[in-house]
């Protein structure tokens, strides 16, 4: 059948996804999905416009890529600039202050992702009336949960403020270290609500776990597919969200590569460009673009690590792994469970750090032999984040390549959209909001952020277009 006989449905934008995504479904005359694509239609161009800027400015500049997880970009760039100034062996104080910033970021971002953006779908059902299936609906129906969500996010933001100077877009990490330590007063401020945060984190894991187990039959195939999984782990195989070596496993748990120094990521990872999206498609070189794509983020991280070095999160990890008998879990909706395991891990780590006197140290910056080209990696809330820079002899950025978490998850999100579209839209005579939201639910399981992945200039008008099977535009809704 030629494409001329297909109907194109465009869902734009994807609501509750930060940035603009456009989903287009190509239907045939029988309303069966022939093709499904998640387009990223924004272009940001950070990699280009930071060229010529001084290297010490970059950790602050690139943090503006995102308002939800700026710390991740801030730290990935700072880790790269550490190596530029030969200061990658940070002082204990600098590393621990940065880790506190990072775990605070992980805690607040995961809380936002799960409670504010995804919980309406889980609590009210994917087909529920959109008028109540939102964070306001959650606040009205489940006020205690809403308070918990807001307070957990606030706590993480406070940890960021204390370490970076501001809750959003701070400046704490500088090449070779940090610009401040954590005072006794600041530490005690965070200790005050720590026990409550630990309790709420336990209950958050429970909510995600109960949901997954209770709805296993309906979600096990929802947007699910087998994939490779990638992230970094500590040298002993433990989960480490701040620093480690790259590990990739296939869908069965077989090692593709392990303990790879991420400075050499280009030997293992490549990116494919497709004409219909600004977002590139990364893949594992040894497998190739067709089957070498991989998942990143909480699901991948829990899948690839050998253990978690905090007791409560480790207990939850074991329970999670038991569901798939130790093999990687490939259920898209399981992202939420693993996301909450990481929330618990992060708060346990914050507890460890707050009791470490190194946070009050005064040795903040170290520098050594200058380098010209480096890579900085971090496990951001949505997944592995690559920052690669080359700096000229005059200290200016000459080249930048940023592979953000959303880009790493590009093909998995497309696969999820395809799967959901095939399972839930095919053959239905009417495209309801609830059905369309199934697609959005699948995307949100991975990522509420799309704009950062294309690095967005200005606001784009919102547009919904509907094409009949002959390719004629039959309806278009535009919202400026």
């Amino acid at each position, binding site marked *: 059948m030629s494409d001329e006989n297909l109907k194109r449905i465009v869902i734009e934008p994807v609501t509750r996804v930060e940035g603009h995504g456009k989903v287009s479904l190509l239907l045939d005359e029988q309303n069966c999905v022939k093709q499904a694509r998640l387009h990223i239609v924004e272009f940001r161009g950070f990699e280009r416009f930071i060229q010529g800027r001084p290297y010490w400015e970059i950790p602050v500049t690139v943090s*503006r890529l995102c308002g939800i997880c700026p710390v991740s970009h801030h730290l990935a760039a700072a880790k790269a600039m550490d190596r530029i100034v030969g200061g990658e062996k940070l002082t204990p104080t600098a590393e621990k202050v940065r880790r506190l910033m990072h775990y605070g970021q992980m805690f607040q971002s995961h809380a936002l992702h799960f409670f504010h953006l995804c919980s309406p779908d889980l609590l009210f059902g994917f087909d529920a009336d959109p008028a109540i299936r939102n964070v306001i609906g959650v606040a009205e129906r489940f006020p205690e949960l809403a308070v918990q969500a807001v307070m957990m996010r606030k706590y993480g933001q406070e940890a960021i403020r204390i370490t970076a100077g501001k809750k959003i877009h701070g400046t704490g990490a500088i090449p070779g270290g940090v*610009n401040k330590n954590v005072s006794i007063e600041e530490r005690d401020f965070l200790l005050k609500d720590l026990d409550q945060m630990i309790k709420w984190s336990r209950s958050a894991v429970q909510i995600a776990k109960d949901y997954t187990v209770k709805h296993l039959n309906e979600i096990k195939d929802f947007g699910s597919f087998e994939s490779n999984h990638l992230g970094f782990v500590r040298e002993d195989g433990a989960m480490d969200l701040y620093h480690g070596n790259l590990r990739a496993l296939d869908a069965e748990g077989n090692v593709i590569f392990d303990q790879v120094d991420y400075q050499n990521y280009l030997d293992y990872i490549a990116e494919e460009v497709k004409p219909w999206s600004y977002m590139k498609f990364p893949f594992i070189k040894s497998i190739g673009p067709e089957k070498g794509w991989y998942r990143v983020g909480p699901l991948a991280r829990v899948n690839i690590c050998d253990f978690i070095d905090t007791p409560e999160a480790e207990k939850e990890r074991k329970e999670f792994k038991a569901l798939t008998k130790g093999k990687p879990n490939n259920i898209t909706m399981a992202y939420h469970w693993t996301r909450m395991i990481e929330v618990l891990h992060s708060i346990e780590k914050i507890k460890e750090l707050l009791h470490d006197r190194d946070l009050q140290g005064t040795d903040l910056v170290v520098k050594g032999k200058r380098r010209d080209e480096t890579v900085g990696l971090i496990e951001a809330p949505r997944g592995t984040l690559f920052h690669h820079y080359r700096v000229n002899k005059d200290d200016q950025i000459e080249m930048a390549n940023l592979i953000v978490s959303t880009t790493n998850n590009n093909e998995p999100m497309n696969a999820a959209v395809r799967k959901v579209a095939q399972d839930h839209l095919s053959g239905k005579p009417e495209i309801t909001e609830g059905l369309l939201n199934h697609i959005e639910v699948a995307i949100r399981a991975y990522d509420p952020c799309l704009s950062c992945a294309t690095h967005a200039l200005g606001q784009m008008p919102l547009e919904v277009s509907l094409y009949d099977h002959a390719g004629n535009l039959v309806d278009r809704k535009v919202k400026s």
Partner: protein
Amino acid sequence: MGQTIKFTIDGTEVNGRPGQTIMEAADEAGVYIPRLCYLKELTPHGSCRVCTVIVNGRPQTACTQPIADGMTVENNTPELLEHRKNLVDMLFVEGNHFCMFCEKSGNCELQAMAYRLGILAPKYPFMFPTCEVDASHPDIFIDRNRCILCGRCVQASKDLDGKHVFDFVGRGVHKKIAVDAEAKLVDTDADVRDKAAEVCPVGAILKKHIGFSVPIGKRLYDQKPIGSEIEEKKMTKVKS
């Protein structure tokens, strides 16, 4: 005892000394007159016009106008405030000022002046000029995107450092800060210890490698608005 010159600023009597400008006498009296190009160590030249006051009914720059007995100076009036806001506003749109990732943020006099004057966003259209960056010097960085052409570096190099590293070239919107070399700053005798490397009110001339080393909260204008240090003198005098 020297002679005392009595004049008023906004109706309040101020005592000055012969040879003082309005700015100098006002500073001593704890009255803040907004300024950008003025720096105590340099010869005032009234180029930014932000310190314009009304002297006996006529506009004058406070940094250059000597005081005189019986002089009536208007400083803090709605009309002057509006003029100053417009001047600062124009400085913003004539350059490329991205405070959010500028290392001078929190220590920048232009940014601090905008905050003090209550400018939340420019009202004039951005010009987005194409400006050159000169990173050639190992210790000093020139970012002309942020230059407001105050001339402090030009004067400091000449009068305080005994050099002639900087000067202006071009006219009108094409005017820019230049260096005394065929091409780059590295070819001059500029040194990081020069006063010229320290006097820039914005982030146009910076010392390299130290950006963002002062945490948010500890920067010059994080706690108090620009001009507070002058107004605090008045408070101290009132208390004593």
